[in-house]
Structures are given as structure tokens and as C-alpha cells.
């Protein structure tokens, strides 16, 4: 992604330099060529020229449209993560970054990623708006409390890169920095092995799922009081009142925090709101657990 951004950047640098030199050159030339020689000289009476006006409206318009399309295509690619990605969760908190890998490994202000893999980071904040910015990968996105935002990138060169918080968030905004460490896939595997057990995050989610007694309503068989969560993420859910939506991590989080917002068709709004009762890390663990319930059981009620 970075090379595409750089290409547009240097194209624009060229456009800016060209027009700046053109205008500056013309002004200085006219100022010298037509400088006032006698104190009461007067300039030529030129009212205007329609042809000139049209040319310097159309040409900038065309150039800007080219830049618009180019910029939009890059943005489209940026906002659409590939289907198969290595998912990492990030929680921004006043003045530190907490990263959570699927194997339960937790990192503060450090992020280890494998070379060449598509990495998607799903982010949320516990307090104010932060912004995960890795200049080397040309990616940046605000981390907004109360919802999920995401960035994705594919590291191409091993090494250590800066990670900044780019949205002002208080006293130590400028200390809320970190390092992204891109490792060879083999080194990454060894690092992963030493730092956690596979599937640990989903397991943590399951224990939380049971502790909060979610399983009393949400069970595999269909006639339970809550909709079955098996194979939920990615499936189209029919809501009360006729709307439908494709379930994603944000929908799962929203349903835990504020269930009465969107009620699955055929169910009563009886689920209590867990707003403030579950930490953001807990919510991420629950979301991971729900995603790990991959196989939609045939008897599941809600299509």
C-alpha cells in the first residue's frame, strides 16, 4: 500500500512544484518586465479574456479529478481488508496501547507481526479518541470509544517501525508511542509459541461467557430464550421490525453493550445491557469466542 500512496504523493509534489514555479516565475517576470518606469504610468486596459478563463478552469478541474480518482481508489483498497487476515485486537487507553493476539499474548506499546502476511487490527478505546498511526505502513485510523475501527497492512520489510498516537488525547499524548516489530515468519512462530497458547483468547472469552451466565439464554439448541450464536459472525441476521444486517464484530459488541438497540426477529428485548460491566478487553475476548463458534448447528433457529 505504501508504494501506491508514495506514487500519488510524488505526483502531487510534482504538480505543486510545477504550478508554484509557473506562478512565481510569471509574477516575478511581469514585475520586472512591466515595472513602472515613470511615476504616473498606467497599465494597459485589459478587461479580461473568456478563452483564458475557460482554459484555467477546465485544466485545474481535470487535474483535480485525476487526483480525486487516484486518491479514492487507494482509499477504497485501504478500507477493504482482504478476506483472509491475521487478526489482532488493539485497545487504546489514556496513554498506552494494549495489543492482544489470538493466542492470548498481550503486548503494551509493542506489536510483533509476521512478514508478508495481511494483518488486520481491530481497535477500540477505553476513554477518549486515540489514533493508531504507523508512518512506515502509511496507515492511520482514529480509535473511537464505543465502537470498532480497523486498519490493515501487509509488512514487506523486516525491521522496527515507529507507532504513534495521532489524535490528541491528553497529557501524555506524545508519550503514547510504540514500536512495530516485523519478523521473518519463522522467528514470528517461535515468538508466538513462547508468548501464549493457541486459541487462548477464545478460551478466555468462553470462561467470561460462562461467568456472565450468557449460556443460560444463548445455547446451541434452538428453543433457548436467546438467539443461537453459532456461525453468527458473517451471517445475515433478520431484526425485529424488518431490517436485516450482516453480523460483524461491531454488531456482536453492540448487542452485548446495548442489546435493546437491535433485537433479533422472534425474540423479546429481555437481555440486560452490559454497558460498563465488561471491560473492552473482555468484550474483545467474548467477540473472539463468538467467532470461534464457527460451525452453525443445523438446528439453529435464527437464519
Amino acid at each position, binding site marked *: 500500500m505504501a508504494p501506491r*500512496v508514495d506514487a*500519488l504523493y510524488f505526483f502531487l509534489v510534482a*504538480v*505543486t512544484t510545477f*504550478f*508554484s514555479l509557473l*506562478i*512565481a516565475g510569471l*509574477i516575478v517576470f*511581469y*514585475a520586472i518586465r*512591466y*515595472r*513602472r518606469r515613470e511615476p*504616473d504610468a*498606467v*497599465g494597459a*486596459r*485589459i*478587461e*479580461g*479574456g473568456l478563452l*483564458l*478563463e475557460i482554459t*484555467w*478552469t477546465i485544466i*485545474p*478541474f481535470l487535474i*483535480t*479529478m485525476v*487526483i480525486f480518482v487516484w*486518491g*479514492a481508489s*487507494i*482509499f*477504497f483498497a*485501504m478500507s477493504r481488508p482482504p478476506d483472509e487476515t491475521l487478526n489482532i485486537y488493539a485497545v487504546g487507553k489514556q496513554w498506552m496501547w494494549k495489543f492482544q493476539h489470538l493466542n492470548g499474548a498481550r503486548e503494551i506499546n509493542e506489536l510483533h507481526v509476521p512478514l508478508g502476511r495481511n494483518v488486520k487490527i481491530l481497535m477500540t478505546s477505553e*476513554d477518549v479518541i486515540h489514533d493508531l498511526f504507523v*508512518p512506515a505502513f*502509511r*496507515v*492511520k485510523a*482514529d480509535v*473511537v*470509544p*464505543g*465502537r470498532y*475501527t480497523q486498519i490493515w497492512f501487509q509488512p514487506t520489510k523486516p525491521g522496527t517501525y*515507529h507507532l*504513534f*498516537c*495521532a*489524535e*490528541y*488525547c*491528553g497529557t*501524555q*499524548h*506524545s508519550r503514547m*508511542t510504540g514500536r512495530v516489530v516485523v519478523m521473518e515468519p519463522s522467528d514470528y512462530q517461535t515468538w508466538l509459541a513462547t508468548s501464549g497458547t493457541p486459541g487462548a483468547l477464545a478460551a478466555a472469552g468462553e470462561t467470561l461467557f460462562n461467568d456472565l451466565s450468557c449460556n443460560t439464554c444463548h445455547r446451541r439448541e434452538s428453543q433457548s430464550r436467546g438467539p443461537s450464536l453459532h456461525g453468527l459472525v458473517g451471517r445475515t441476521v433478520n431484526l425485529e421490525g424488518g431490517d436485516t444486517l450482516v453480523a460483524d464484530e461491531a454488531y456482536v459488541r453492540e448487542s452485548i453493550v446495548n442489546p435493546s438497540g437491535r433485537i433479533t426477529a422472534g425474540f423479546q428485548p429481555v437481555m440486560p445491557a452490559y454497558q460498563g460491566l465488561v471491560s473492552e478487553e473482555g468484550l474483545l475476548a467474548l467477540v473472539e469466542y463468538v467467532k470461534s463458534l464457527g460451525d452453525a448447528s443445523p438446528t439453529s433457529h435464527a437464519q
Partner: protein
Amino acid sequence: MPSNLLLPPRHYLNDGYGVWSWLLTRDHKRIALLYLAAVTFFFFIGGAFAVMIRLELATPAGDMVSDDTYNKLFTMHGVMMVFFFLIPVIPSVLGNFLIPIMIGAKDLAFPKLNLASWYIYMIGATFTTYAIVTGGLDTGWTFYTPFSTASSTTNVIPAALGIFVTGFSSILTGLNFIVTIHKMRAPGMTWFRLPLFVWSHYATSLIMVLGTPVLAITLLLVAAERLFKFGIFDPELGGDPILFQHLFWFYSHPAVYIMILPGMGVVSELVAAFCRKPVFGYSVVAFSSLGIAILGFLVWGHHMFVAGQSVYAALIFSLLSFLVAIPSAIKVFNWTATMYKGAVSWETPMLYAIGFIGLFTIGGLTGLFLAAVGLNVHVTDTYFIIAHFHYIMVGGTIMAYLGGLHYWWPKISGRTYNELLAKVSAAIIFFGFNLTFFPQFILGYLGMPRRYHAYPPEFQVLNVLSSAGASLLGVGYLLPMAYLAWSLRYGKLVGSNPWGAVGLEWTTTSPPPTENFAETPVVTWEAYDYPTRVEGHVA
């Protein structure tokens, strides 16, 4: 050359003496000078904060002031400069003084309202400055929630209410200008004979009137949410922080056009006067002011490309942001075309105008980097943005303001300033400015985030360059204040038209009488109608 001219026996400056003749005046010219004093005062406070920021950033480690103090510094610099200097400066100083004279009226439509605007501005500005100096404000001039509503512990409510009050001064000035331009033009002064200065202030007033109320309600909601724990912008209580950004930028982007459009109006006057020929494509330049004012309201989303806005909304805002760049480009081309075959003089105001055109071009084109969404993701919230808007604000508005101030100084005071000193200070300002802000483009591309108290060591060289430039710029701004004040007492006397320019303001005496004209002028000539030879011009 000893000037054998004398000041006119009766003019607005000697039409009453004493403090009350100034504090209770209803003469738009005196109110303009009241604004001049107030605005200059707040400019130097904001400037002091800027110097402290640059001193801090000379070293990578944040070692001059504490984190909190630095956060207050950049917030105070932003608030002072945006709300108390850039927005009011050209409209309330030059606009107030000149619009009635340029359209041949005795005064603005509502003189008492005009004085009330000054008092509202002073109350709001001093109250906010008191709140900032005693407790400080650390939310940035943007007041982003939920930091400003839930997390900040500084004087957010006093500052928000102070800016809320100052906003009304802007609304009432805009209202005054619109009614004056519509209803009080002299006989024969049709819309297309108006000077472009008046056109650009008309467009600016539209923005002031249509945009400022939305900022007012947004700041009121922030204050209400802090006081009563409402749930409007705080996600904890069910609100949405991005809605705050929508409402805030709905005003704050048009606000940047409030800051630049008057500057464009001044430059159109300067280029016409110092080339002594009509502005190339008068009606196109006039309508592009209106185009900027209207399109300016449709583009605010480009401040929020990374804020979590929907992809499609981002694309629409990006497309419209490119469209709003076109009228500005047209203006630059028209100014350049005006200089073709003109009698181009190199007096100080023209140097400022040339500086404006060059720097504004760079500022405008770097805006295209930010309108392109894919690129915005990388450069937003970095020093690239800081450089972009300082090229427009400092390279544009302040250059135009200084140019305008020097151009109309003889009309305001009846005396002229020292030409050599003025040219030297213009050169210092131009050079100091570029040294301060051009390195920041590179810093931004390299990824140095804005509002950072400490930064990685590899950015130090560019930051030191920028800090050096800032000290030069600071000195550069002190010079005009010195020699202009000095010229009030010792400046050479000038006649009613020292530049040999065309315009109603040059037909009345310098300084003009309180009712501007002996009797209401009747306009029969087109705008910028230069005769073949300019008589009565004193070199």
C-alpha cells in the same frame, strides 16, 4: 521632498477627543481602529505562545515545559490566533473602515450594532484570555469530545463560553456588512462597479452569518455536557463523538474561508492599484468569491477522513473538496494575468501582494494532498497539515493584512511610513516564514504527528530549522508595529490619493471626515477605470 500638504482641518480623528469619544463612538472608522488595537494585542499574545512552542520543539525531548503546559501552549496559540485574530482581523479592521467609504455611504447600516460587536468581541476575548491564563485550556482549539467533555480538567466551560460570546461579534459584523452592501450603496454604484474588496467581504459575511451559529450551538452543547452530564457527545452516555466533529467542522471549515477571502479581496485591490489596470476578469473573480463561500459549506468532511466516517461520505467530501479548490485557482491565475502589461510598482503593499500570491499558491496546492483521501490518511494529523494551513493563514491572510494595512495606512492616518524599513521587514517576514514552515512539510511526510511535546530524535534537524525561522518571523512582525506607530507622529503627510489609485476611498480626504464625503458621490465609472494618465500623483 518636503511635503507642502496639510492635514484636512476637520476629519474623523479630530472630531472629538477624550476616552469617551472613542469608547462610545459610532463612527465605523473609529470602531475599526478600536478593533486594530484589540486584534494586534491578541495577535502578539498568540504569537508569544507560538514562540514558546517552537523553543520547546527545538529539542526532541520535551524538556522546557511539562506535558500539560505544552498542551495548554498549543491550545492557547490555536484559540488566540483562530478566534481572536485571523477571523476578525481583515473584516473588522480594514472592512469596517473601508466598506462604507468604498460604496459611498456615510456609515454602516447599524452603527450602534457595530460598536456593540466590538464590545462583545472584547468581553468574549478578554474573558477567554483570563480563563486561559489563570487555568489554561488543554483541549486544542478543536475541543474534540469525549476528551473536552469527559476527560479534560481545565477551563473548558469558560473558554467555550468566551468563544461562544465572541462568535456573536462575528455574526453581527457579517449581518452589518450584508445589509450595508445591499441597502446603502451610493447612486450609480451597481453591483458590478463594486470594488472586489467589497465582493470578497460580502461573501465572507455570508459565511459568518451562516456558519457561526452552528459553532455556537456546538460549544453550548459541550458546556452543557460538562455541567449536566448530558449524553450528547459522550459514548459512555450513548452519545457519538463523531457528531461533535461534524457540527464543529461544519463551521470551522467555512471559517478558514472567512480567514482567507478578505485577504483575497485585499490582494485584488493591491494588484489593481499597483499595476494601475483593471483586475483581469473582474466578474469571474467576484463570482469565485461567492463560489468559495457556497462550496465551502459542502466540504467539511475532509477533516474527518480517518475519524471513522463512512467510506462513501468520505468520497463525496473528497470530490467536493477538489471542486472548492477551483475558484481559488481561478483567482490566482486572474491576479497573475492582471500583472501582464501593467505599470507594476514595487512599493511595500505590492511586495506583500506578490508574497501572498506565491505562498497562497503553495498553500492551496498542498490542500490537494489533503483532499485526496488515500493520501490524507497518511498526512493528516501530522506536521504536513500544520505547514499547509500556516501557508494559507500566515502566508496568505497575514501577508494580505499587512499589505492592506500599508496600502490604506495613508488613508487611515493621513501620513505615510518609512518605505525602506517597510521593505526590509517584508523581506524578513517572507524569508522567516518560509524557513519556519517549509521544513514542516517534510516533517509531516516523514510522519511526525502534530501536537507532540516530544518527538523521535531523527526529526530534530528540521525542527531546529523551523524554530530558527520562527524567531526570525517573530522579529519580522515587531518591525511594522514599530514604524507604523512611529509614522503616526512623524510620518510624511500625504494627499487624498498617494498611490494614484482609482476608488471612492481615494476621492475623499486623508484622513476622511466623519461622514466620509462632503456630499454623497454619484458613481458613473466602472470599477478600476484607470484613465490614460494619472494626474496629481505624488511619487
